[in-house]
């Protein structure tokens, strides 16, 4: 499977995940994203999971960690497009996404990033 692409829109990095990722792929994505941040000096990252049917606890942890790591490197993270079914499952399992801003869509995520970037 090809690597998940990391695009740049305005000042931000956008990661659009189109299908369920294996643990190794998720870890690889984290690594690549952080390296992009090192070069691009972005103030924000949008991770779009609208293509994911299943989000397990390990993936949640990778997401939370990635958001924290990106924050250390000066970028805020918006997690967007979570499917309703996934949201329900995560809630039932008691999986937290604390420290990660979540939003409905890519547009909303970018809006939030723009407004918080000036803060």
């Amino acid at each position, binding site marked *: 499977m090809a690597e998940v692409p990391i695009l740049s829109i305005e000042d931000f990095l956008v990661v659009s995940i189109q299908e369920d990722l294996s643990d190794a792929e998720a870890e690889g994505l*984290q*690594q690549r994203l*952080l*390296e992009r*941040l*090192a070069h691009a*000096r972005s*103030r924000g990252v949008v991770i779009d999971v609208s293509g994911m049917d299943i989000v397990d606890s390990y993936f949640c942890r990778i997401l939370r*960690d990635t958001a*924290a*790591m*990106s*924050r*250390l*490197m*000066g*970028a805020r993270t918006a997690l967007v497009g979570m499917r309703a079914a996934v949201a329900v499952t995560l809630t039932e399992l008691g999986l937290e996404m604390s420290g990660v801003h979540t939003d409905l869509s890519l547009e909303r995520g970018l809006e939030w990033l723009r407004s918080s970037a000036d803060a």
Partner: protein
Amino acid sequence: MESQRSKLNDQQVEGLRVLVKGLQEDQSWLETVRATMVREMPEELLPDEAEWAATLEERFAQLLWAADNRDLGVYLAQQRQQTSEMAEAGMPLRAIARATSDLRQPIADHIRRVVDDTEDQKAAVDALDHMLMESLVIAGEVYAAEREDKVEDEFRHMIRRLSTPVIDVWHEIQVLPLIGVIDSTRAQQMTEQLLERIVDQQARVVIIDITGVPTVDTAVADHLLKTTHAASLVGARAILVGISPQVAQTLVRLGVSLGDVETYADLRSGLERALASLGYSIERKAM
């Protein structure tokens, strides 16, 4: 290595016994030797009467033991210890070497006077020469090691000072680029330097750049937090920059919190933020 050097052959053993006997029975050589010591050694290192007598007795005992056991090891170990102490007390190698070689003549003369047999005389003087040679070698070794330590210390100190220069990019913004390992000594030194500069320039923001710090673990994070806290006590806000992907991953995985210190991947971002927070903007004039 030392154990081989310190072994004595038959002739040396005999010579040693004659030497000790000659020095013990008639102590008229003492005055001359004492005069040599006084000439070469700094006053504070000179033994007093009681110490002198005790040391002498001890030395004779060690030499007789050496003869009995055909091994000069114990005596030489003592010699090394004493030389180290003198080196630490600041006595120059030159003085020790000279004092050692100046001992030869008066003692050799004395031996020739009190020992009748020429064969015995020769053996005793040979034993004396052997001991003095070993003492000189030891002195050389001790001082070489000590010098190396000193150079290393000086070097480390110099590196510390060179690698914590605080850069005055704007009077309200001070930048501290860190390079190398941060231990507690260095952390303290850099904090002092940073605070002095903050007060000096009345800085409002300090940017600490850790790009050059190879490992950032809980200990290093702790030092950094202490530094940022100290800076805040004198009214400056701290921004930490130079967080690499590796460092970001390590910190999150270790569960280290950097509190509410702003962090950025690179200096430029930190600088932009610092300027913005102080109300500055950069405008390009039409050329």
